[in-house]
């Protein structure tokens, strides 16, 4: 099908001696297709920035290979990789204005002056930096520098665009609009982009696929929808999703016709055996302890449901967040309308089996998502 833009195979990164130093990235395998937007998502220290820097050529690869367009590049200097970057510490040239900084990225392209001017004007409009184009980097805010640096990277026709926290400092009122514009810009030109972010909102908004990293290990590499619907493990399940997934430790029991989860404080969730496939039931019955997960928007209120008590009801304009006391913990519900529930009110909670994620109580690996095996 489509061409592979980047192929990472068996990559390790050690800071310090190989096998003895700090193991920042562990046996990473990843492929990026031409025209894809990929997000490396994780908290600080997860290995995402080390990965990006290895792709850029700022960090040596300790082990493994990185190939671009079918050619191994891990020993190449950054300038030989035809990669455009918007990085922290890969800053704007101080003696040049913002306009000159952005236009400088097109210098090697030998485009006519009028085409350069037009491209620069377009990107300035897209990123809402038209009013600072004549200014010098030292006289503009951090957020403006970030946008100028992003403009300098996006304007190039590189094989790969590497963007480190590209929108972190942007004022919130502009974020949704700029996300839409930037995604459109990248897609329309068929650019391949890898962005590093700790902000799952940004990753979900922009990326075709998200690589979730933790402890130097790639936890899951999939589309935002699959990560939401089929998280590979408890880490991914609870890390991605806002508000976070509700999780409860549970014991399992069952007969031929039923599957029951026993939660704290004697709360029991009873399901028909037919709510789960044979394979799922077989896997569940092998275990005594699991973790149940359900996303806040999938929790339903229903009169015959399990009892819960409303503790907090917060309306945010376009949605309502409700926290209930449930099975010795907190069950959060998200509803898209304004919900009229008083604090202390008792409600019934229904956890639809099709929305239920079950994780192994020991390893945290996903066992099932709804009816199906993970």
């Amino acid at each position, binding site marked *: 099908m489509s061409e592979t833009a980047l192929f990472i195979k068996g990559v390790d990164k050690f800071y310090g001696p190989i096998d003895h130093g700090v193991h920042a990235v562990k046996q990473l395998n990843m492929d990026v297709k031409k025209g894809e937007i990929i997000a490396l998502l994780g908290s600080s220290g997860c290995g995402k920035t080390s990965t990006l820097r290895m792709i850029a050529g700022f960090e040596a690869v300790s082990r493994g290979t990185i190939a671009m367009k079918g050619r191994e590049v891990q020993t190449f200097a950054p300038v030989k990789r035809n990669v455009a970057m918007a990085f922290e510490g890969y800053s704007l040239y101080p003696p040049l204005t913002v306009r000159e900084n952005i236009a400088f990225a097109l210098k090697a392209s030998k485009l006519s002056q009028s085409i350069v001017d037009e491209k620069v004007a377009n990107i300035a409009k897209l990123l809402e930096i038209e009013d600072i184009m004549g200014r010098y980097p030292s006289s503009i805010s951090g957020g403006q520098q970030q946008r100028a640096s992003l403009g300098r990277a996006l304007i190039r026709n590189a094989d790969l665009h590497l963007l480190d926290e590209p929108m972190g400092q942007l004022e919130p009122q502009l974020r949704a609009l700029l996300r839409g514009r930037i995604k459109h810009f990248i897609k329309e030109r068929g650019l391949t982009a890898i962005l590093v972010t700790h902000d799952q909102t940004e990753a979900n908004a922009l990326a075709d696929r998200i690589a979730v990293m933790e402890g130097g290990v790639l936890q899951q590499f999939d589309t935002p929808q699959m990560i939401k619907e089929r998280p590979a493990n408890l880490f991914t399940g609870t890390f991605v999703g806002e508000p976070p997934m509700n999780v409860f430790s549970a014991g399992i029991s069952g007969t031929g016709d039923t599957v029951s989860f026993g939660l704290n404080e004697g709360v029991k969730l009873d399901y028909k055996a037919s709510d789960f496939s044979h394979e799922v039931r077989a896997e569940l019955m092998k275990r005594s302890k699991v973790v149940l997960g359900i996303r806040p928007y999938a929790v339903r209120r229903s009169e015959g449901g399990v009892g819960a008590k409303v503790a907090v009801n917060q*309306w945010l304009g376009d949605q309502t967040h409700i*926290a209930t006391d449930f099975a010795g913990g907190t069950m959060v519900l998200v509803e898209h309308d*304004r919900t009229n529930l008083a604090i202390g009110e008792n409600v019934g909670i229904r956890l639809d089996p099709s929305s239920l994620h079950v994780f192994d109580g020991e390893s945290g690996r996903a066992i099932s998502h709804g009816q199906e095996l993970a």
Partner: protein
Amino acid sequence: MTTLQLKNIVKRYKTNTVLDNLSLDVADGETLVLFGPSGAGKTVLLRLVAGVIDPEEGQILIGGEDVADIDAEHRGIGMAFQNFALFPHMSAFDNIASPLTATNATKDAISAGVHKVAKLLKIDHVLSHHPKALSNGQKQRTALARALAGSPPLLLLDDPLRNVDAKLRFEMRLELPRLLAAQGATVVYVTQDYKEAMALGDRIAVMSQGRIRQIGTPEDIYNAPADIEIARLFGDPTINLLDVTPKSGPDGVYVELSNVKVALPGMPSGVVGKPCVIGLRPETIAFTDASAPGAIPVTVEAETPLNEKTVTLVLTARGREILVSRPAGTPGPVSGPAHIAVSGQAAFLFDKESGGLIRSAATPMTCNGEAA
């Protein structure tokens, strides 16, 4: 009874007026959120109430009593400020216990009190650590715990969740109201996050440039923002704002978006011909069929999921950008031509020149979830 009243407060730094004749009443047990951009004067206001600085003019009353001659430590206030201000030589436990050690509480009672609040704030595992061994989020929660530990009748909280990661921030947003309600304290809470403001505030005071621009319940402000700036501060994605000039037709006042008439029911005819800005919240715009009445043709530029919503950037024939938001999982176009329906009922109209609200949405959501 702990009420807080500020009467005609003026605070200047040299020639710079940072609080400009500001008055504010906070009821007993109320959580009032001060919301606004940095430099609005929020923190200065807290520091005045705390007694760290004094106003040039005006009066501050706590529980009905003028506190001009009362020192900071005798005002009965619990504080958590942005810069933590923890005692560096003391463990997190001792920091949190510090307001209690000054009282006659027994050692066991102090320990129980510290552990209770530390557990709620999820720092019970780091109580033995000194501040330098704590992450910023943990420092902030330690400062918050210290403010809460003494059960003061008045709490001043300056952006206490600022340095906390997104997940914990969300958890704390749900935990804090319970904690505050259990204490029964009167709270003044500063934040720059509108979701936090709406979630925690009984009322929100929107501040900018040393003044309160609007004060009201979250419903008041979301459904009837006093001006364009305030409308832009509440909502994610941000409200769509489009220049329009209302016209008059046989069915009343309308505006045109891409040559499609959008009726504004109940709009006074005085706005006809006046340069205005129409405000359309992304969640009130829907995709529709080409044949539907009032369908506006657009081109889909990009789809960007946002939490449990799908946000779509569309372009009208005239190149105006509009953000449309719908619950995730509901169908909608991903690219190419499409049509949107705009509800005149849900539209805000602002005066273009002054930015002031002319009319709020005719059918705002009320507290009861019913159309007003």
